[in-house]
């Protein structure tokens, strides 16, 4: 009996994994450009950012001052762990959480793409009817996603080395970031068994990522700073978070690989759990029951504006919470900013357009918020392309809704949502800088006004995206994101640092955005930006009236 069991168990496992190699090759082939885009994007970003920090923080005293600033400020500790005054350490303080989150998303999307999404779109059914074992799709997705993470670790290491940082630290940093990605291969594998939809699985994995961020951030906030004020020792919550494990390797000071063992152990446990769950569910289904909804529509849903709001509100709430949190953090930082000296002070006064460092700080932070809101606006407006290419537009325009009214549904949501986000940011920044500067009520009003003054520049970007959707529908998504990216790079945050020529910087609407509250808002600039936005919207509407819809065949 035992003999037969031991003989058949491996055979049965082999049967359940049948076809894994073929599916892995299929997944790798489908992912080849996506993966290259992730590696190139993250690698170039890390190389450029490291080089930027190496350049601006080349003075050791200044580096120490900046490091002390991020180590001693509670708000800044939320977004990173400080390990000492090194360029690499500063890079990881500033960017580790974001890079780790992106690596986690890269892994999550890859796993979902090759498992749950295949099931949702019915491809898995076709594949499953061939010689393919129960675990083959999951195994193939995990193999491809983990391989992508391994390459990412190497690419990021090379990027940091290319920017002139120590080799050992660079590759440990790359591995620490990719390790977070690897853990999310496991998280996504489990999420795909639980939820029956792509969205549900992505939501569950993103929720876990949010929890990991909060645990790591709170652990660092509650941690202790050494006497020199240059190194933070995290409190216990950090050790519950995969992001925390990645931070604890401290590649450019302690350089210990040990915390990555925790990540490896978590990955193994999660994959085992996913396999166990996969054995208990049907193809196309999850373990969680499907949710029921309302049998009839609420009154407010029954218009293009209401429909767009319904489809966007989740994203809006996410943005509002994020911008509100950042507003609160940047507000608390005002105290440290007041005490800045030398180069650090110069940067804020230059970008902020004021001799008073706090004014310059507020103006440039609020301009940054305006740029973030422009990204939100682009995201909302590109939904129009999703409507059209996905075919839902066909049903809407077959009713009494005109094309301009359909556009208006998105524009109203985009403009109102952007304005609301700016108000949230300005108000929350005012709330926490009030205790430092006095007159909280007045500050809130000033900063809300300054934030709203950023809306016209964002609207220009949004209107350009609208024109892209109308004039070049099939290319509107890459075009739209290129427009935002170009406007950001040529704008006041990066343009001067990159030494771009003046005319190029002038092309970015953000260059003309008011530097409020440091500089009084000039009506002329605001009206000019609004005028450009309106002109682009008119062009977009005229073009849209004349063209065929590009519906799915």
């Amino acid at each position, binding site marked *: 009996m035992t003999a037969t069991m031991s003989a058949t168990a491996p055979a049965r496992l082999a049967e359940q994994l049948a076809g894994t190699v073929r599916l892995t090759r299929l997944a790798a082939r489908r992912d080849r450009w996506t993966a290259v885009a992730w590696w190139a994007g993250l690698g170039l970003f890390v190389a450029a950012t490291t080089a930027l920090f190496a350049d601006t923080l080349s003075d050791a005293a200044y580096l120490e001052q900046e490091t002390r600033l991020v180590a001693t400020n509670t708000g800044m500790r939320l977004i990173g762990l400080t390990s000492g005054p090194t360029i690499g350490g500063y890079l990881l303080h500033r960017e580790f959480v974001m890079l780790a989150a992106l690596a986690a998303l890269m892994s999550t999307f890859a796993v979902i793409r090759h498992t749950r999404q295949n099931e*949702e779109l019915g491809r898995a059914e076709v594949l499953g009817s061939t010689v393919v074992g129960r675990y083959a799709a999951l195994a193939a997705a995990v193999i491809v996603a983990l391989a992508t993470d391994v390459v990412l670790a190497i690419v990021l290491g090379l990027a940091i080395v290319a920017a002139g940082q120590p080799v050992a630290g660079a590759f440990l940093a790359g591995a620490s970031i990719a390790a977070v990605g690897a853990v999310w291969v496991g998280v996504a594998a489990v999420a795909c068994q639980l939820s029956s939809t792509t969205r549900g699985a992505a939501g569950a994995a993103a929720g876990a990522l949010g929890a990991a961020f909060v645990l790591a951030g709170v652990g660092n906030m509650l941690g202790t700073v050494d006497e020199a004020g240059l190194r933070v020792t995290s409190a216990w919550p950090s050790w519950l978070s995969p992001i925390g494990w990645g931070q604890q390797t401290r590649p450019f000071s302690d350089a210990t690989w040990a915390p990555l063992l925790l990540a490896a152990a978590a990955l193994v446990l999660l994959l085992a759990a996913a396999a166990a769950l996969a054995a208990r569910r049907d193809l196309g289904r999850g373990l969680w029951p*499907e949710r*029921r909804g309302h049998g009839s529509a609420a009154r407010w*849903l029954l*218009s293009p504006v209401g*429909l767009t709001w319904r489809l966007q509100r989740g994203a809006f709430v996410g943005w509002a919470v994020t911008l509100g949190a950042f507003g609160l953090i940047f507000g608390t930082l005002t105290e440290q900013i007041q005490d800045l000296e030398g180069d650090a002070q110069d940067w804020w006064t230059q970008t902020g357009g004021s001799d008073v460092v706090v004014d310059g700080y507020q103006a440039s932070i609020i301009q940054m918020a305006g740029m973030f809101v422009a990204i939100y606006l682009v995201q909302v407006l590109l939904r129009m392309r999703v409507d059209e290419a996905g075919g*839902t537009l066909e049903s809407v*325009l077959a009713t009494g809704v005109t094309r301009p009214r359909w556009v208006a549904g998105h524009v109203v949501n985009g403009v109102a949502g952007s304005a609301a986000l700016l108000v949230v940011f300005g108000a929350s920044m005012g709330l926490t800088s009030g205790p430092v500067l006095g007159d909280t009520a007045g500050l809130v009003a000033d900063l809300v006004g300054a934030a709203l003054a950023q809306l016209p520049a964002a609207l220009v970007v949004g209107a350009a995206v609208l024109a892209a959707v109308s004039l070049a529908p099939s290319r509107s998504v890459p075009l739209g994101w290129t427009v935002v990216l170009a406007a950001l790079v040529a704008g006041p945050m990066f343009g001067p640092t990159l030494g771009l020529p003046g005319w190029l910087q002038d092309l970015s609407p953000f260059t003309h955005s008011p530097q409020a509250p440091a500089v009084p808002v000039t009506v002329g600039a605001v009206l000019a930006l609004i005028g450009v936005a309106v002109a682009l919207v008119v062009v977009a509407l005229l073009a849209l009236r004349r063209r065929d819809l590009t519906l799915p065949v």
Partner: protein
Amino acid sequence: MSGTDCSPGAGPSAISTRALVKEFGATRALDGLDLDVVTGEVHGFLGPNGAGKTTTMRVLLGMLRASSGEVRLLGGDPWRDSATLHRRLAYVPGEVNLWPNLTGGEVIDLLSDLRGGLVPSRRSELLERFELDPTKQVRAYSKGNRQKVALVAAFASDVDLYLLDEPTSGLDPLMESVFQDVVRAVRDRGRTVLLSSHILSEVEALCDRVTIIRNGRAAESGTFADLRHLTRTSVEVETARPAPLAGLATVRDLAVDGDVARFSVEVADLNAVLSMLVSYDVRSLTCTPPTLEELFLRQYGDRLDGSAVFEAV
């Protein structure tokens, strides 16, 4: 009611296209289509895949602009007056794409409200007859159930014209029969239906007239009786003495088995052949009119040598 040159049928025309052309770059999706749908009829719209049925629907809805030719719908121009006309029609697309996170009930309310409203009693009646659970999210519906959502959203509104693009391809036979009842009820109220379909029994059961589209133009149009006249009848005849059928040019597909001969003949030539047969002492005779399948196989089959036909034209 303007410029309606409706030759066939009695009533005014709900839809009329003349020499309708739609080009996508170098591709000619519609190549001079003439389509006439009379008010109050159920009109079948048939054709092989890629013949231009969906393109026609989208031109009729003002989503695509005609490259040339004339299109009238409910007395208006579907491109210019689309939103006004859309208040008087309901459309079920061939591929039903809906918002995955809305429930079926929400979609039904949304689409009918954007069209101008629905009849609440009809909504609940249709939900019941189609056995559709409106509280499920769209992503949880099967293809057939998504189609039912679109059908309920369309038929819950009382409009003049229903445009249905292969609306039953995902329905089971029971739901197919519910669908046929619903279409008949709509016709009984004097509404017009343009039904594109692949299911011949459905077309035969529902449609007053049909138009067959092939390579972007109308190949045939008329009642089933009209269409049958255009094609051959199968004859099986037993005669006391062998009849010299092989000598007749109008007789095709001849097979002789002793006293029994089987052949096919154009309906117009049937009388001549029969009177000749009588003189050879007919013992038994069976005439079978062409089935719908034969009719369409003949029409669709021509597609293969369609290029030759068009070159000849």
